[in-house]
C-alpha cells in the first residue's frame, strides 16, 4: 500500500516534468532553427581541418591555433604584452604549416602572423615595436652575404610590423627583382607600400618599383591600378631609380620601354592564333589507325570482348613538339612525323593489347593516368607496364630520347623518386620538370606532393607536400566509371599552381617549392577505398578543368566539385563562384564568357554569371581537348568535328572526317599545318585550311 506521503513528491515531480516538457516543446523549434542556421554556415565555409574533406594541407598544431586564439583574446582586452607573447610562443617550425584564412584561402602560420601584426592598432603597434624592434633590427643588420635572403625573409615574415619591416621588404623586393622573380618582388613592395603605413621609405618609389614588377609579372589589372595612382597621387614627386630621376609616372614609362611583360605569364601561341578552317573534304593528309590495328583478325567473340573493355575506349595521350607527334597509348609510346604521318619509332607493338585488356589489372587501370610531354630532345611519359598483373602497380615517370625512344631515366630507378607515383600531365618550366605525385610510403594515408626534377637526368631538385589524403583511390572493375581526379599544373610568372582536383588549389614558388597558400573549394566528401563493380546509379559524371587564366583570376573547378571559382591568386581574393554542376568543366574564356564543357557545351556570361546558351553535342563534352577560339569552339565527337558559334551556341558546321564512331572524349589538337583528331579509333591529320570551300549542306546542321 502506497503511503500518502510518497504520493506528494511524485505529483510534484510530475508537474515539474510536464513543465519541462512544455518548455522544451516551445523552445524546440527555435533551437532546431538555430542549429540549422549554424549547420548552414558551417556547410558554406571550407576548413582545412574539416575531416570530411579528401585532402588536408599540412596543418598547424593545436598549440598554434590556441596561440592565435589567445592573441585574439588578449588583443581585445588590450593586454598587448600577453597577446604578443602568445603569438611568439609559436615555434618557428610551425611557420610553414597551414591554418584557415579568409575567403576559403588556407594560409601559412607565418602569413597569418604577419597579417594579424599588420592589422594592429597604433597602441598595439607601439607595444609590439617596444618588445621586438631590437630583435628585428639585429636580424636585419645581420642580413648580409649568403644569409641575406633568408634573414630578410625572416624579418619580412615574423617582424614586418617593426620599424625595419618595410626596409626588409624593400630589400627583399630588390633581391627578387634582380633574380627575375617579379611576382614576389611586387608582393614585397606592395606589402611595404600598403601594410606599413608609417614607412620611412618613399611611397612613390615603392609604388614605381611595384608597378614595374607587376608589369613584368603580367599582373595587368594591378599594374593599371598602380599606374593610375602614380599619375594622380604621386605626380608631383620625384623618384630616383637606376640612376635616373623623374616623376614616377614618367620614370615608369621609360623603364617599361626597357623590358616587356613576362611572356611566360600568358603564353600566346602563334599556332593557335592563326586561321582555322575545316572544309567538307573528308580526305585526311594521313591516318595512324589504332582500333583497326588491334582489331585486325579478331573473331566476333574476341571483338565483342575487346569492345566491352574500358581500355578500348581510351584515346592516347598526345603531345606535339616541332615536326613530331608523340603518343602514349596505354604505355606504348609512338613518335610520328607530322608531315607524312610515318611512324618514326615505337616502344612496343600494341596489336596484342586485347589479351591484356581482359586481365583484372587492366580492367582496373585508369587510362586517363597515361600522360606525355615533349620538348626538344626529350619526352617524359607517365606510364605503367600493362603486362604487370598487379592491379595496384604504380605508374612511373619515364624520360626517353625524342630521336629514337631510348629510355634515359625512370622514376623507379631514381632513389629519391622511387617512392612517388606520378599523377597528371607533367609541366616543363625553363629548367625544371614539375610533376604532381602521390607518396606511397607515408602512413597511414599517402600524400599529394609536387616534385621538381632536373629534366635530363631525373635528379630531384625539390619536393613539396601539398597535403595528405583522407581518402584512397577508387577502383573500377565494370560499369560506369567516374573520372579519377588527376592534379593539374599551371606555371605563371615563376609561380606554380597545382589544382589537386579534390578541393585544394595550391600555389608554390616554382624555384624553391615553397608552398605559399592553398585555396579550399567545395568538393565531394571523403570516400573510402571502394572497388566498384557495377553501375553507380544515375549520379552525374564528374569532370574537372583548369586552372584557366581569366584576366587576373584563375578559373578553378575540381573534378568532384559542382562549383566554378574565379580566384585572384595575387590579391588572394575570391572574385566569384557559381554552381555549374559536377559534370561541367571550364574549357576556356572568350570575349566576356567562360566556355563550359560537360553534358553540354555552354557559355557563362562573366558579368552576369548567367548561362547564355547550351548546346548538346553527340557524346557530350565531358573530356578531351576542345579548341576554344574566338572564331569558334570546335570539338571532336563520335559524329565528327563540330564547330559552334561562340556568341550563340549554334552549330555552325559539322566536319565528318574519316574517323567517325570514335568514343567520346577524343582530343582535337592544332599544329601549324594540321588539325589532329586523336581518338580511340585513330589519329588523323587534316589540312588546317581546306583547299575547297565547304559545301552549303555541311554548313547547316543536319
Amino acid at each position, binding site marked *: 500500500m502506497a503511503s500518502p506521503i510518497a504520493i506528494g513528491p511524485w505529483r510534484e515531480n510530475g508537474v515539474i516534468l510536464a513543465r519541462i516538457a512544455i518548455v522544451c516543446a516551445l523552445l524546440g523549434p527555435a533551437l532546431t532553427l538555430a542549429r540549422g542556421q549554424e549547420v548552414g554556415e558551417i556547410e558554406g565555409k571550407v576548413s582545412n581541418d574539416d575531416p*570530411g574533406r579528401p585532402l588536408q594541407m599540412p596543418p598547424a598544431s593545436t598549440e598554434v591555433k590556441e596561440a592565435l586564439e589567445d592573441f585574439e583574446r588578449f588583443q581585445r582586452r588590450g593586454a598587448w604584452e600577453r597577446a604578443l607573447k602568445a603569438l611568439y610562443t609559436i615555434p618557428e617550425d610551425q611557420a610553414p604549416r597551414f591554418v584557415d584564412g579568409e575567403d576559403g584561402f588556407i594560409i601559412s602560420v607565418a602569413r597569418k602572423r604577419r597579417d594579424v601584426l599588420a592589422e594592429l592598432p597604433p597602441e598595439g603597434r607601439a607595444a609590439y615595436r617596444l618588445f621586438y624592434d631590437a630583435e628585428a633590427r639585429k636580424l636585419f643588420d645581420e642580413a648580409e652575404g649568403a644569409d641575406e635572403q633568408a634573414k630578410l625573409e625572416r624579418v619580412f615574415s615574423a617582424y614586418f610590423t617593426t620599424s625595419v619591416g618595410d626596409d626588409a621588404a624593400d630589400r627583399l623586393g630588390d633581391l627578387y627583382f634582380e633574380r627575375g622573380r617579379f611576382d614576389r618582388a611586387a608582393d614585397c613592395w606592395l606589402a611595404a607600400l600598403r601594410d606599413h603605413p608609417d614607412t620611412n621609405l618613399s611611397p612613390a618609389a615603392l609604388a614605381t618599383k611595384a608597378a614595374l614588377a607587376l608589369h613584368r609579372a603580367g599582373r595587368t589589372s594591378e599594374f593599371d591600378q598602380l599606374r593610375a595612382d602614380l599619375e594622380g597621387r604621386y605626380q608631383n614627386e620625384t623618384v630616383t631609380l637606376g640612376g635616373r630621376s623623374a616623376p614616377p609616372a614618367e620614370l615608369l614609362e621609360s623603364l617599361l620601354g626597357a623590358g616587356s611583360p613576362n611572356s611566360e605569364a600568358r603564353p600566346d601561341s602563334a599556332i593557335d592564333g592563326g586561321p582555322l578552317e575545316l572544309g567538307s573534304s573528308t580526305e585526311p593528309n594521313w591516318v595512324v589507325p589504332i582500333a583497326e590495328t588491334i582489331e585486325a583478325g579478331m573473331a566476333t567473340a574476341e571483338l565483342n570482348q575487346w569492345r566491352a573493355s574500358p581500355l578500348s575506349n581510351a584515346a592516347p595521350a598526345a603531345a606535339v613538339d616541332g615536326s613530331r607527334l608523340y603518343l602514349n597509348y596505354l604505355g606504348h609510346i609512338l613518335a610520328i612525323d607530322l608531315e607524312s604521318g610515318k611512324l618514326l619509332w615505337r616502344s612496343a607493338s600494341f596489336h596484342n593489347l586485347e589479351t591484356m585488356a581482359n586481365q583484372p589489372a587492366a580492367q582496373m587501370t585508369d587510362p586517363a593516368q597515361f600522360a606525355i610531354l615533349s620538348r626538344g630532345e626529350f619526352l617524359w611519359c607517365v606510364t605503367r607496364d600493362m603486362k604487370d598483373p598487379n592491379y595496384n602497380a604504380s605508374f612511373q615517370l619515364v624520360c626517353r630520347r625524342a630521336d629514337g625512344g631510348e629510355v634515359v631515366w625512370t622514376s623507379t630507378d631514381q632513389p629519391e623518386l622511387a617512392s612517388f607515383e606520378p599523377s597528371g600531365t607533367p609541366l616543363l618550366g625553363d629548367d625544371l620538370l614539375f610533376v604532381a605525385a602521390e607518396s606511397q610510403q607515408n602512413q597511414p594515408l599517402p600524400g599529394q606532393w609536387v616534385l621538381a626534377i632536373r629534366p635530363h637526368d631525373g635528379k630531384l631538385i625539390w619536393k613539396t607536400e601539398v597535403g595528405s589524403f583522407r581518402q584512397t583511390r577508387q577502383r573500377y572493375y565494370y*560499369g560506369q566509371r567516374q573520372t579519377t581526379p588527376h592534379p593539374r599544373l599551371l606555371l605563371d610568372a615563376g609561380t606554380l599552381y597545382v589544382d589537386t582536383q579534390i578541393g585544394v588549389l595550391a600555389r608554390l614558388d616554382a624555384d624553391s617549392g615553397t608552398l605559399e597558400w592553398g585555396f579550399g573549394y567545395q568538393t*565531394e*566528401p571523403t*570516400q573510402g577505398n*571502394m572497388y*566498384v*563493380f*557495377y*553501375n*553507380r*546509379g*544515375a*549520379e*552525374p559524371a564528374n569532370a574537372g578543368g583548369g586552372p584557366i587564366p581569366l584576366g587576373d583570376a584563375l578559373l578553378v573547378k575540381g573534378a*568532384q566539385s*559542382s562549383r566554378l571559382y574565379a580566384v585572384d591568386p595575387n590579391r588572394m581574393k575570391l572574385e566569384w563562384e557559381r*554552381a*555549374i*554542376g*559536377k559534370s561541367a568543366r571550364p574549357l576556356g574564356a572568350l570575349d566576356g564568357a567562360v566556355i563550359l564543357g560537360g*553534358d*553540354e557545351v*555552354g557559355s557563362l556570361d562573366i558579368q552576369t554569371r*548567367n*548561362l*547564355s*546558351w*547550351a*548546346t*548538346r*553535342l*553527340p557524346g557530350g563534352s565531358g573530356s578531351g581537348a576542345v579548341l576554344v577560339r574566338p572564331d569558334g569552339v570546335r570539338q571532336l565527337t563520335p*559524329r565528327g568535328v*563540330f564547330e559552334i558559334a561562340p556568341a550563340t*551556341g*549554334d*552549330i555552325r558546321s*559539322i566536319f565528318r572526317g574519316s574517323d567517325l564512331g570514335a568514343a567520346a572524349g577524343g582530343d582535337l589538337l592544332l599544329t601549324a599545318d594540321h588539325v589532329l583528331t586523336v581518338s580511340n579509333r585513330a589519329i588523323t591529320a587534316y589540312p588546317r585550311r581546306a583547299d575547297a570551300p565547304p559545301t552549303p549542306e555541311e554548313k*547547316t*546542321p*543536319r
Partner: protein
Amino acid sequence: MTPPFVSPTGVEPSRLRPLRRAAAAVACLALLAAVADSASAQYGSTPGIPQDIEGLTVIGKGSVSAAPDLAEIDLDVSASAEITGDAIVKFRDAKKRILEAFDALKLPNVAVEERGLLVDQKGAMVNPYYIDYNVSQKAKSEVQLSRKLVVKATGLREMEEDAALQLVGRLLDVAQDAGARVGPPPANPYYGVVYYRQGEGPALVRFVLEDLEKLREEAYEKAVADARKKAERLARLSGVELGPVLAVREVSAPTNRLIYPAIEPPNEEESSAENRLVSPKLRKIPVHVELQVRFEIRQAGKGNDQGKTSNQ
C-alpha cells in the same frame, strides 16, 4: 472407471467407423474427379470452346496486310543542372536546336510532336550494387527536365524502300547531330540480361500503320467468310445443313501491341491510340482477325421449321 463413450446420436463409435470410412472415400473420389476435370480442362480440351453446346462451332481467320505509312522516332530531350535556371536554359536550347534542325530540313511530311515535361532530380541516388553508407553526403542532386519528342514522317507507303530508308536515316542523323538522345532510354544492362533477349528491345524507329478501319473491315469479312467456309465443309461431311449464325466471339483482334514483345516501356500518352498498328520493321504490317462462329445445323432435307439441332 471411465464410462463407455457414446456419440451424441446415441450410436456407439464402433458402429460409426464404417460410415466414416465411406464418407472419406466419397470425399477422396470427389477430389480426384475435380482434379481430373481440371486437368482435362487444362490439357485435353480446346480452350475457349464450350463442349456442351448445340450447333456447329468453327474458328474463322482473316488477315490483311498493308505497308506502313508513318515512321516514328522517339527523341529524349533532357537537361540537368544544380541551378534550376541553368537546367531551363539547357533544356530550352536543347529543344530549340532539335526543332530548328528538323525545320531546316524543310520536309513537309516530317513533323515533331512534343510529349509531357518531366521535372525530376538527378544524383544523390542510392547505389543498388553496393552498400552505400554516405548517400546524404554525396553531391547535391540536380534538377532534371526531360521531355519526349516524337518525330513523325508520313507518306512512307508511296515511297520505295530505299527512299524511305534514306528519309529515316536522315532524320536519325539530324536528331543525333542536334544532340538528342535517340530511341528508348538506355536500359540498365544488368536488368537487361534478365528481361530482354538481345535484339528484342524497342527499336530506334517505329513503323506505324494508321487508319485501320478499312483494313479491319476487310479482315473481319475474310474471317467470317473463312468461318462459313469451314462450317459448310463440316456440315457437308456430317450430312447436315448449315443454319443461321447463333453466336460470334472475337478470339483475337488487331491491337497496337501486336508486334512488340510483352515487355514494353509504359507509354501512357500513346496507349489510347487504338487505331494503329506498330512494327519495328519496315515491312507490310498484317491485320489479323480471328472469330469463333457458331452456326445452327439442321437435318439434311428438312425445312427450317422442322429443324432440330443436334450435336449428339
